[in-house]
C-alpha cells in the first residue's frame, strides 16, 4: 500500500474513468462527475488529476481517432490499469471494513 495514496478527488476521477469505459476522456469525466456527484470542476483540474493518476500508474491512456466536434483534434482516452483497479478495490474494501466497525450505537447517536 505504500506510496499509492488516493486522494478524495483522485478516487472520484478514478471511479468515473471506470464508469465511462471505454470512452473516458477529460470533458466526459468532468460531465460525469457533475452529473453523478454534483460537483462542478474546471476542466483543467480534471486534466491535472488524470495526469497525476497516470503518473502513479493507475491509469493508462492513448489517443483515439480524430472527431469532428473538436475541430479534428484527437481525444486522450483513459483506461484503468490493473493497479488502478486494485487500488479502487482496496479503497472500497477499506471503507466497507471501517464502516462495518462503527458501533451501531454511534450511528444512532443524536446530537443535541
Amino acid at each position: 500500500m505504500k506510496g499509492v495514496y488516493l486522494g478524495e478527488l483522485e478516487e472520484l476521477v478514478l471511479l468515473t474513468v471506470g464508469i465511462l469505459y471505454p470512452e473516458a476522456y477529460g470533458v466526459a469525466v468532468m460531465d460525469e462527475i457533475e452529473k453523478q456527484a454534483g460537483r462542478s470542476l474546471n476542466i483543467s483540474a480534471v486534466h491535472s488529476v488524470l495526469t497525476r493518476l497516470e503518473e502513479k500508474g493507475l491509469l493508462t491512456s492513448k489517443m483515439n481517432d480524430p472527431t469532428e466536434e473538436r475541430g479534428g483534434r484527437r481525444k486522450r482516452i483513459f483506461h484503468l490499469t490493473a493497479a488502478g483497479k486494485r487500488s479502487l478495490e482496496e479503497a472500497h474494501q477499506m471503507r466497507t471494513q471501517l464502516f462495518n466497525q462503527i458501533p451501531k450505537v454511534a450511528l444512532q447517536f443524536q446530537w443535541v
Partner: protein
Amino acid sequence: MKIQPPRWADRFLEWYCNPQLLEEIQGDAYELYYRTVKESKTKADLLFTWNVIRFFRWKNIKKTNKKITQSQASFAMIKNILVVTLRNFMRQPGHSLLNIGGLSVSFACAFLILLWVTFEYSFDQFHTDTNQIYSVVTHVKSDGAVQTYNAASAVLDVSLVPEVEKLVSVSTGDRWPHTLCFKPEAGAKECVYLNGVYSNENLFSVFNFSIIKGDPNPLTQPNTIAISEKMAYLLFNTDNPIGKTVKLDGLEAVVASVFKNIPTNSTLQFDFALTFDILKKKWGASEEVFAQNFFDTYLKTNKETGPARLTEKLNDVRVVTEAYKVQNISYQAVPLSDWRLKNKFENGKQAGGRIDYVMLFIIIGSLVVIMAVINFINMTTARATTRAKEIGIRKVTGAYRSSIVLQFVSESFLIVLIAFLIGALLTQLALPFFNSLLGEHVSIGILDGWVPFYLLALLIIISSLAGFYPAFVLSSFQPVKVLKNQFSTPFTGSQRLRKILLVIQLSVSAGIVIFSGVLYQQLNYITKKNLGFDRSNMIRIEPTGALLRNFEAFKNELRKNSSILSVGSANSNPLTTEGGNPGVTWPGKPKDQRTTFKTIGCSFEFPETFGLKIIEGRDFTSQPQDSLHTEVLVSAEAVKVMGLKNPLGEIIQIGAAQCVIIGVVNDFHTESLRASRLPAILYRVDYMHTAGIYIKYQPGTTQQSMAALNRVYSQFESNFTMKYWFQDDTFNEIYKTEITSSRLVVLFTIVALLIACVGIIGLATYNVHRKTKEIGIRRVFGASITQVMTVLTNEFLWVIIVAILIASPLAWMAANRWLASFAYRIEMPWWIYVATFAIISMITVAIICLQSLKTVLTNPTKTLRSE
C-alpha cells in the same frame, strides 16, 4: 468554421502549452466551447478564456518553460551578467588586470607561434596542384654511409616515366653566376647584386610564379631573361621593360617577361630566371661537362602518384642510367609540400628538419596557453570565497544551477574575449619585432587565410576550458552552508586541485628556465671557444677576375694603409668548410682505412692572415712553388692521424696531386661545433683558384679599413661593386638557428615566469584572505610576524619542491638531448638547477610576503571582531 473562440486566448494556449499535451487540451477546450456557444457566444468566449488561463499550469508548460524563460529573460539576463562582471572587475581591479594581463600575454605568445607555424606550413602551397609536384633528391652511397643531395642529374630523362608530365631543373646558388652584378639603366655607378636561377622552359608552368607582363612562357628562347617586378624597378624604373637588354657581365639577354615578386613562403627564391644556354656560356662548359652537373629537380605528375611509386620508377636503370647506378646513386621523389619542413636526410632516411622546431614551438605555445588557463581557473575559483554569498543568495531566490553556470561561463567568456582581443592586438604590434628576432618574414597576418578560424576555435576551446570548471565548482555551493559561513568544507577538493595545477605550472616554468639556462651556457661556450684561428676584425670579399689577376698589386696597395694587417685568399672559408675530403693518401696508409680530411687551398699569406701557429717546420713563402710538389701545411691532428713520426718532407697525395709537407700548424675547427673537428691540410693554390679574399685589420679600425678597402677596390675593379662580409657575421650565421631559438627561449622564459608569478599572486591572495582569522589568532597568541610568514610560505614551499622534482629530470633529458647534437659541449651545469630552485622560491616567498604583509600587520582585533 465561422464561430471561433477568441484568437488571442487560443494563441496564448498554443504558445505556452507543451506540444505533447496541446492537442488534447485544446480539443477539450474547443469541445466545451462549442457546447456552450449554442447558449451564448459571450459566455462561451469567457469560459474558453477562463479555461485557457486555468490550463496555464506548471505541468502543462513545464517542457517548453526553459525555452520561454530563457528567450524572455535573455536580454535582462545578459545585462545582469554584464553588470555583475563589471562590478566584480571593479571591486578588485588589480586582481582582474593581473588576470587579463596574464591571459593576454600568453595569448599573444600563442598567436605568434600560431602565425609562424601557419606560415611554415604554407610554404610552397600556393602552386596549383602542389601535391602533384615532387622534388627529386639524390642519395649517394659510399663506404657504407649515404649522403643526400637536393639535386638530380642535369640530363635526367623521365620520358620513360609516364606519370611525369613535366620536369624542371633549376640551378640555384648564392654566388657567381647566380648572384650577378646589374647596373641600373639610369646610369648609377654602383651595381646591384641580385640572385637568380637558371632553368628550362617549364619553370613558369610547373610553379605558380605569375607573369605580369610579356611572354607567359619565357625561357624558350636561349637569350631571354625573366625578371621580377622588383628588379624591373631597380634596373629600369618601369613596370614594362619588355624588350630591353640586360647586361650580364659579358653576355646579354632580352627581357621577355616580368613576374610578380616571389612570395616569401616559397622555397625557391629568385629575382631573375635565365636559360641553361647562358649558364653553359658563363661556365664555358661543353655539353658533356654540363651533363655531369646536378641541379634542383622538380617533377610535375599528371595525377596523384604516391612518392613511393614515383621513386621506384625513377630508380629504374634506364632512368638513373647505368653509369650512375654503378656509382651507387639513387633518386627519391619527395613531395614538394614536405620540402620545407622535412628536408633533413640522415643516411638516406628522412630525419625531420624544420618540423622539429615547428613541433617544439607548438608544444611551447600549448604549454603557455595551458598555464594561462590554469591560472585563470585558479584565480577564478579562488575568488569564489568572495562570491559564495552572492551565489547563495541567487540560489535562495530561486536561480537554477544552470543559470548560475551560464553566468559564470559568460563571465569567463567575457574576460577571455577581452584578453583575446588584447592578445591579438599585441600580436599585430609584436609581429615586426618577432620577424626581426627570427630573421624571417612571416607574411601571414592575424586575419589571413584560415587564421581567424583557428583563432575562433581556440577562443571557444579556451573559454570553455577556462569557464566550465569554475562555473561548476561555484554553482555547486549549497546555499545553506554558504550563507552560514561554512564554506571551508566544500572547498577542500578544489583547493587540492589548485595546488596540483600550480605544481604543473611551476614545473613548466622551472623546466623552461632550466633548459634555457643550459642552452645559454652552451651557446656562450661555442661563441667563446677558441677555434684555433682568428675570426674577429676580418673581412671577406668576393673576388673578381680582375682582382685575382692583380692580387699582388691589390695586396700591396692595401698594405700601404697602416690599419690593414694582412691579406690572403683561399678557396673556402675555414669557418664554413663543410664536408671532408676522403681522398688523401700518405706513406704507410692502411688499405682499408678511411679518413676524411679538411682540405683548404690557399695563398701563402693564409696562415699568417688567420693567425695560425706554425708548430714545426716553416710557413708558406712568397717564392713560386716547386713545379713537382704542392706545398702543404698539416694540422697537428693530421700528423697524429697519419701516424707520421717525422712529417716534414713527407710526400702525401690529395686526389692525384703530389704534395710535400713543409710544416705543421695548430689544430683548428672548420665548421659548426656540432660536428667534430677533422684533421686539416692546407695546400697552396694559385690566386686564380681561390674563392674569397680575407683581409685582417687592426682592432678598432673598422671604418678606416673599410674606407681604404673601398678605395683600393674601385681602383682595381671598376665594373663591380664590392661584396663583403665580416667573418664575425658569418660565424653568427652558422649558429643562426641556435641563436634564434635561444632568443625565443629567453622570450618564453620571461613569459613563463610572468605567468607563474601571476598564478602565485592569485593563489597567495586567496590564501591570505582565507587565513585572515588564523593569522589574527596566531598573532593574539603571540606569534611573531616572521613565524606567521613562515606558516604562510610553508604551504607553497612544498609545491615548489614537488614542481622542481618533476621539472628537473624532464629538463635534464631535454637539455641532454639537445647538447648531444654538439660534438663540443659543456658539462651539464648543475648550478642552474639550484639557481632555478632558488629564484623560483625567492620569487614565491617575496610575492607571498608582499601579499600577506598587510593582513599580518593589521591589528588582530580588527580581523577577529568582524563576523
